[in-house]
């Protein structure tokens, strides 16, 4: 079933979504603070300046740290997909950074918490969206 929601980029998020279309999973990195942040923001949350923010490629690997399942969403476009997994992935090189995943191919409520995952890509109306698959 095709993904129901298309993310609309804005000036702060455009670099991220453009990188996704090149199959690169990136996060913001402040060179002054040596600190990653995600989702992208207009300024570094630590130094509060925009000047040292760059987009940094990630390993594309992470760990599932927990999940829920949506049975009754407030988002109408997701209704025909219910129920679906809502897993959270912590980035391997910086576990404070987390990502969403519906874990394509994983049955509902059979989410292997603690497993290693790697990023994959799903397209929705021309935009690649990061998803994750279990590797171990």
């Amino acid at each position, binding site marked *: 079933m095709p*993904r*129901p*929601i*298309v*993310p*609309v*980029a*804005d000036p702060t*998020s455009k670099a991220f979504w453009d990188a996704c279309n090149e199959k690169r999973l990136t996060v913001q990195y402040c060179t002054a603070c040596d600190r990653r*942040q*995600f*989702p992208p923001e207009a300024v570094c*949350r630590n130094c509060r300046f925009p000047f040292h923010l760059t987009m940094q490629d990630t390993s594309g690997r992470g760990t599932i*740290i*927990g*999940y*829920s*399942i*949506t*049975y*009754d*969403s*407030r*988002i*109408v*476009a*997701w209704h025909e*997909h219910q129920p*679906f997994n*809502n897993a*959270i992935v912590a980035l391997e090189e910086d576990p*404070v*950074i*987390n*990502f*969403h*995943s*519906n874990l394509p191919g994983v049955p509902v*409520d059979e989410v292997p*918490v603690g497993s290693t995952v790697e990023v994959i890509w799903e397209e929705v109306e021309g935009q690649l*969206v990061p998803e994750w698959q279990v590797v171990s």
Partner: protein
Amino acid sequence: MTTIKENGWERSRDPVGIWEHRGKVALVGRGHSDTDRRWDGEDLSKTLGAYTMRAAELAMEDAGITIEDVDGVVTSAGGQGAGQPLSDVWAPRPYFDPPYDSEDGLTSVTAEWLTQQMGLKNVKYTHSQGGPIWNLIGLAAQVVGDGLASVVLVPYPNGNLPGRYHQTPGNKVGGPAQWASTWGWGLSGQGFTFDQYCRKYGSDHDAMAPFVVQERANGLLWEPSYYAQHEPGEFTIEDYLNGRMIAKGLSIFDCDRPVLASACYVVTTAEKAKDMKQKPVYILDHTESAFQPRSLVQTLDDTEEWTDVQAQRSYAGSGLKPEEIDIFAPYDGFAVFTQYFLEAFGWHGVKRGEAHDFYAGDISLKGPNPLNSGGGNMGSGRMRTVFITDPMEQLQGRAGDRQVSIKAETAVTIGVLPVTAGVLAMSTSPD
């Protein structure tokens, strides 16, 4: 007329220190309108404006004051999510003759509207952009303490209109929603944090049952409760366990039911409180907080860190210790997050990971651990005002069948969320 409080009234930066007006401000009256499931969009006697006027009349009567005594009105206009009026959520709608010819009076109630409609001719201070009730009472207390007004009405309207709650149409999302809706993330967030909690401490969702069931029972003893007025039947453990799941870790019975109701409080100086009708409930402190997740979502680590700060800030500001809190009323808008507040404050010795065992013990009204003696939102509907009215009534000894058997001389209440909350500490004594 003075309007809009100066910036920076919140006590949200550590170290807060003991509140400079500790014990010098008091709650002295409360009033509640009827409680309905929703407004039908037609009956002008049941608008938020009409209900707020009624609640204000009752609050003044309760305090033993008249409109001539009132010199301030502090409110949250619409009561929904940081003061967002219902007009932004369910607009447009038909209007009527004045004073119901705009959203003001129908789906939101500004201080100015109320002041004009009730003829509050001595009002010199108004504010309509307050937050949830805890923050609002905190603001009113600071206003009185700072001398901007001395007898302040604090209305808190909460509305509901026809239709399902907060359904979001469309398939393109920008702004903050691009980081959540793209993966269908929503109330699953509550379930995710709860899942992390259960994995870390070895529990499961069934452990929530005794807490929610007790809250409903408590709420049935509170007259303004939606359930007391419209669904007075018993709610059992089996009922709870059979509730449909909204998300894994979040039952329909963990979600507060939207209702339409208004309440009003009277906040004044300790000096004036002595001459009013009810026993004063002194405000020892108000503190506020606002956090941000480290990344996309609120994790258990985030939640425990934030609630620890909220508790420590309140203890530092009020001068109270955990063992000195008699009445404890942590918010339960989603019942699955009440435990984080309970454990952070360490009420009755509850430590991290122990909340569910605590729920399984004696949390009855007449027992040793009457948590949320008013029943919370689970017991009354999405009004939030039980978190102020019940502690007041417990401390004043007029909670009726809800009156706890333990000592009731101090109270602490916190809401709305671990990510942002106000905390109020109250006492029967100004010292």
